[in-house]
C-alpha cells in the first residue's frame, strides 16, 4: 500500500500538539524553564488552533480509512484548542502548579482533537481514552487534599465501568458487522441484515459510554462529586471540553450510523427525547437544593447536557447546528461562572452560597460579571445563552416536537430559580464581612474576555451560526 505522506499535512494541528507535548516534557525537566510551562502551553495550543482555523473549511475526505478530515473535525479542533487555552489562562490566574499539569492539559487537547475526526471504532475508543486518562490525573492534581483524591478515584472507577460498557458495545457491533470502519458498518446497517435487538443493544451500550462523558442521566452520578472535589479550573475544563468531546463523538456516531429515515428499526430520536427530558429535569431539580456552588454548577451542567440533547432529539440539520452553536456559547458562560466561583472561593476558603453574600458590594465588577454569566445560562435575552436556546427550541418546534420544547422552557424557569438564588445572595443581601474583595487585573481582563462574546453573540450571531452550519458537513459514504 502506498504511503501518502501528504495526508499527514491534514494532521498539522495534532502534530503541533505532539511536538509541543514533547517539548513541554523536556521543559519540565529543566528547572529554570519550568515556570514558563503555562505560557508555552498557551503558545502551543494557540498555534494548533490557528493552524486548524487556516485549514477551514477544507475538503472532506477520509484518511487512512480511519480518520475523517472534514469541516466538522476542524470546527471541533478549534473549539478544543480554545477550550484548553481558556483552561490554561484560568489556571494561570488561579494557582501555581507543576509543568506536568499543563502537559496533561495539552495531552488531553491532543486526544480531543483526534477524537473530532475519528471515523473508526478503534480510533474512537483510543481517543476517548486519551481524553479520559489525563482527566483522571488532573482531577487528583491536589495531591495532599482528600476531596481531590476522592474525586479522582471516583472519576477513574466510574470511567472504567463506562469504558468497559462502551467497549462491550463496540465489540458487539464489530461482531455483528465484521468491521470497525464507520462506512462499512453503515453499509451493513443499510442492508439491514443484522438482528435489530442486538444492534439496538450494541448502540445502546456505546451511547451509555458516551453518555457518561457528557453526564447524561442516568450516567451522571459521578459528575457532582468529581466537580466538587477537583480543583476549580479543572472542574471548569471538565464541564466544557471533555463534555464537548463526548458530544462530538455522539454527533458523528448519530449522523453516520443512525441516518434519518432509517433508524435500525428503533426510534432513536425518541430515545434522545427521553434522555434529554430526564437529564434536564433531574439536573435542574437537583441543583435547587445545592448550597455548594461547584456542586450547583455541576448539576447545572448536567441540565445543559439535557438542553444539548434536545438537538439530537430533533435530529435535523437545524438541531445539530444548534448543538454546535450552543457549545460555543456554553464554553464562554460556563468558564465564566466557574471562574468567578474560583475567585471567591480562593479568598473565602470555600464555595458555599453564603460566601457570596453581599458580593455585589464587596466586588461589584466580579458580581456583575457573574450575573451576566448566570443570566446567560438561564437564557435571558439579549445574551448569547438565549440565542443558543432559541435555536434548540426552534429546531424542536420545526420538527413538531412541541411537548419536549415545553418541557425545555419549563426547565428554564426551574433553572432560573437557583441561578437567581445566587444573584439574590450577591445583591439583595448584606455582606457578612463588609470588606472589599480584591481581584487582580489579570482576572478582571479574563472575565471581560469571557463576557464580551456573550454580549456580542447575543446581538450579532450570524457569522457564528453560519460557521456552525458550515461545520455540520460530515464525511458520509
Amino acid at each position, binding site marked *: 500500500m502506498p504511503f501518502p*505522506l501528504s495526508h499527514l499535512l491534514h494532521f498539522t494541528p495534532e502534530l503541533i500538539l505532539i511536538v509541543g507535548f514533547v517539548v513541554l*516534557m523536556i521543559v519540565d525537566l529543566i528547572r529554570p524553564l519550568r515556570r514558563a510551562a503555562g505560557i508555552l502551553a498557551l503558545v502551543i495550543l494557540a498555534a494548533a488552533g490557528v493552524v486548524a482555523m487556516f485549514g477551514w473549511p477544507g475538503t472532506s475526505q477520509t484518511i487512512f480509512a480511519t480518520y475523517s478530515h472534514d469541516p466538522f473535525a476542524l470546527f471541533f479542533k478549534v473549539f478544543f484548542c480554545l477550550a484548553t487555552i481558556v483552561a490554561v489562562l484560568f489556571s494561570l490566574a488561579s494557582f501555581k502548579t507543576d509543568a506536568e499539569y499543563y502537559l496533561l492539559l495539552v495531552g488531553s487537547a491532543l486526544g480531543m482533537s483526534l477524537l473530532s475526526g475519528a471515523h473508526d471504532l478503534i480510533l474512537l475508543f483510543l481517543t476517548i481514552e486519551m481524553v479520559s486518562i489525563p482527566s483522571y490525573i488532573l482531577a487528583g492534581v491536589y495531591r495532599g487534599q482528600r476531596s481531590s483524591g476522592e474525586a479522582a478515584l471516583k472519576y477513574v472507577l466510574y470511567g472504567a465501568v463506562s469504558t468497559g460498557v462502551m467497549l462491550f458495545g463496540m465489540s458487539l457491533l464489530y461482531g455483528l458487522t465484521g468491521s470497525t470502519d464507520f462506512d462499512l458498518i453503515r453499509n451493513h446497517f443499510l442492508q439491514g441484515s443484522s438482528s435489530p435487538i442486538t444492534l439496538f443493544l450494541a448502540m445502546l451500550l456505546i451511547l451509555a459510554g458516551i453518555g457518561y462523558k457528557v453526564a447524561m442521566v442516568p450516567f451522571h452520578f459521578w459528575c457532582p462529586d468529581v466537580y466538587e472535589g477537583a480543583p476549580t479550573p479543572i472542574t471548569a475544563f471538565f464541564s466544557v471540553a471533555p463534555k464537548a468531546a463526548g458530544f462530538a463523538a455522539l454527533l458523528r456516531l448519530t449522523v453516520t450510523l443512525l441516518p434519518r429515515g432509517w433508524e435500525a428499526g428503533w426510534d432513536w430520536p425518541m430515545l434522545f427525547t427521553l434522555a434529554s427530558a430526564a437529564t434536564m429535569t433531574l439536573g435542574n431539580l437537583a441543583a435547587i437544593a445545592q448550597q455548594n456552588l461547584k456542586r450547583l454548577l455541576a448539576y447545572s451542567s448536567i441540565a445543559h447536557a439535557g438542553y444539548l440533547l434536545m438537538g439530537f432529539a430533533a435530529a435535523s440539520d437545524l438541531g445539530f447546528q444548534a448543538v454546535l452553536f450552543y457549545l460555543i456559547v456554553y464554553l464562554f458562560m460556563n468558564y465564566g461562572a466557574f471562574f468567578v466561583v474560583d475567585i471567591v472561593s480562593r479568598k473565602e476558603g470555600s464555595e458555599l452560597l453564603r460566601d457570596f453574600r453581599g458580593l455585589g458590594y464587596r466586588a461589584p465588577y466580579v458580581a456583575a460579571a457573574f450575573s451576566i454569566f448566570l443570566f446567560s445560562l438561564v437564557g435571558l435575552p439579549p445574551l448569547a445563552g438565549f440565542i443558543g436556546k432559541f435555536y434548540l427550541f426552534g429546531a424542536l418546534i420545526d420538527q413538531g416536537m412541541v411537548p419536549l420544547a415545553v418541557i425545555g422552557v419549563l426547565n428554564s424557569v426551574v433553572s432560573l430559580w437557583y441561578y437567581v438564588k445566587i444573584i439574590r445572595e450577591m445583591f439583595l443581601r448584606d455582606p457578612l464581612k463588609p470588606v472589599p474583595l480584591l481581584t487582580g487585573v489579570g482576572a478582571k481582563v479574563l472575565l471581560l474576555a469571557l463576557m464580551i462574546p456573550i454580549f456580542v453573540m447575543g446581538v450579532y450571531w450570524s457569522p457564528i451560526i453560519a460557521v456552525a452550519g458550515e461545520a455540520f458537513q460530515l464525511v458520509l459514504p
Partner: protein
Amino acid sequence: MNDNFPILILLFLVAAVVVLAFLALTVFFGPKRPNPDKGLPFECGTVGVGDARAPFPIKYYLAGIIFAVFDVELAFLYPWAVAFRDLRLVGFVSMMIFLAILAVGLYYAVRRGVFEWK
C-alpha cells in the same frame, strides 16, 4: 430423531447420577487428614507472606506501566523489521521519530524519579 430423544435424556440422567454418586462417595469414604501446610496458597514454590490485600509500593505500578509501553513498542518493531525493505526511508524515519518520542518519555520518567527505589 424423535425415536432417539428418550435415549438421549436417559444418557444425560445416567451421567448425572454417576457423577453425583462419585462425588458423594468420596465425601463419605475418603480419608481426611487436615494439615496447616495444605491450606497455604501455593505461589511458585515460595511460602506466602501476609494477606493478599496488603498494599504494596506504587512503584510497582509505575514500573509495570513503563514495561507495558516498551512491550507494546516491541510488538510494533517486529512487523516493522520484517517489512523494513519495502518501507524504505519513510518507514525508517517514522520509526525513529516514534522511538525518539519514547526515548524522551523514558528520559522524563527517569528524571522524575520513577526508577529510584527508596
